[in-house]
């Protein structure tokens, strides 16, 4: 089902791309942490809305809205893995070899999942290390915040895998019509939907708002909610709604991926 040689080739070819993504993500994280040190005294005084008194809290606040890069990373991977090959005419070389379409499809999906896991693992290690090093005085009184960060890392991977599968399914079906522009549009699209839902907060019932919130997969890794939870401020209900919405999303993505696979098996690849 999975071809090791092809998987190895995918990693070799994607080495530069994955390194660039990692550097961008780490650079942003370091930048945000530096901003925290610049403004931490003002934040500690509180502004009547939110009180941020540790680097982990700060991380939670920025992660929710500023890490648009994650869904774009997942959507680019998902959309372009199969279509790019055919569009750039490498398909004739790859698919003329003794590899079935099913093998290529499954290997590419496996590569996408592994790429997400590897980049996120690196991110988790670097962020955790950095937070511990720079935030020891803040974290000592509340070690649970590190637990919250790990929860965020885990759920962030779930969010990316959902977006990846959604886009991989779509990419399989669209084949060479799946472009880089489309993948960026999907990533940004999720972000825009998230903002629109945020705006609705002022106008709709709180329970309905909670449900609407999780209609966008970006909120599967809602760092603010996670920090509220580890700080004992979140209600259990919110996580119940989360699960209620996440499960259909995951089912939808698996369905879309299966449909995409069927379309891919019947499409011209050269």
């Amino acid at each position, binding site marked *: 089902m999975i*071809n090791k*040689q*092809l998987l190895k*080739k995918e990693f*070799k*070819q994607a080495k*530069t791309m994955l390194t660039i993504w990692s550097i961008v993500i780490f650079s942003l994280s370091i930048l945000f942490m530096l901003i925290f040190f610049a403004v931490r005294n003002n934040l500690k005084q509180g502004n009547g809305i939110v009180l941020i008194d540790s680097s982990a809290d700060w991380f939670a606040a920025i992660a929710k809205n500023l890490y648009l890069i994650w869904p774009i990373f997942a959507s680019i991977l998902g959309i372009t893995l199969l279509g790019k090959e055919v569009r*750039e*005419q*490498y*398909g*004739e*070389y790859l*698919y*003329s*070899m*003794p*590899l*079935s*379409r099913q*093998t290529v499809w499954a290997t590419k999906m496996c590569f996408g999942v592994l790429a997400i896991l590897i980049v996120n693992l690196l991110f988790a290690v670097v962020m955790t290390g950095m937070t511990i090093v720079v935030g020891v005085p803040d974290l000592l009184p509340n070690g649970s915040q590190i637990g919250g960060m790990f929860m965020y890392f885990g759920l962030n991977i779930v969010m990316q895998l959902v977006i990846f599968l959604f886009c991989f399914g779509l990419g399989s079906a669209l084949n060479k019509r799946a472009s880089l522009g489309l993948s960026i549009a999907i990533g940004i699209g999720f972000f825009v939907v998230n903002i629109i839902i945020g705006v609705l907060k002022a106008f709709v019932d709180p329970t309905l708002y909670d449900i609407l919130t999780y209609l966008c997969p970006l909120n599967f890794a809602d760092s603010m909610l996670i920090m509220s939870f580890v700080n004992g401020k979140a209600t259990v209900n919110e996580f119940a709604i989360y699960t209620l919405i996440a499960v259909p999303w995951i089912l939808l993505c698996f369905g879309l991926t299966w449909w995409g696979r069927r379309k891919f098996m*019947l*499409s*011209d*690849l*050269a």
Partner: protein
Amino acid sequence: MTNAENIAIQIKELKKYYGTFKGCEDVSFDVNFGEVVGFVGPNGAGKSTVIKALLGLIIKTSGTATILGEDANIRADIRQRVGYASSDSIFYKNMRVKNLLEFTAAVYGKGADTYAKYAKRLDLDLNKRIDQLSLGNRKKVSIVNSLMTEADILILDEPTNGLDPLVQKEFYAMISESKKRGAAILLSTHILADVQSYCDRAVIIKDGLIVADSTVQSLVSGSKESGKVVKDVLIVFENSMPDFSDVSGMENMTMDGLTLKGHFSGNMSDLLGRIGSASMSQFSVSDLNLDSIVHDYYDAEKIGKQ
């Protein structure tokens, strides 16, 4: 080996439509082991479409195209026995030639150095990146990539385009070696002299349809109508041209002033008898070459369209 066992490639009533655009229609022919078949046709005739359908790269509209009796789209493992050189010769541009060929070797389960001897013969630089290569060098990569598989079926789509004559010569030497070891070779090309020199059989396709499928020998010595010997005739008379109106086999001959030329498919003694004692400044009768035969088919197409 029975006839059926000797068939490496079999295409029957293959039809491929891209929407309403016809790629090929009712294409049927076989390629046997130990045989080089020239697949000839103008640009857009449908050669690549047939080859891609055969390899399972595109989905057939109807008909069958099998390799060793199997549909390559269903049984991808059958491609283990096929070496393929694509006409576009497009490979991963950020890879080095060596890495690309190593990947091919790994997928085919060959040793990592199987490509070295072929690369050396074609003078291919293994350390260059694909995007640094000229068309000719990409063609060399394509040829090495297909031959290094040492497969018993080779499908080569316009492999010599852009190659210099010395490399072409070496390529055909390698093809001859593959033929000697019993490989079945389908060679798509525009270069008709090569088909005449190196192929056992020619399959001519035009406008998505097969118009001729015969041994090269019978194509050049026979005519489109079976059983008749066709000769390329050129006669220039000195004073006046005899009346040839009742000589049969003159259908493809033209008379222009004192010149009579074209493909004569009748009885040569009738023609000579009619010439009699008429004085001539030029007289030549020769076997047809494949070039003129194929162009006859192409011209027929043009006339048909007019």
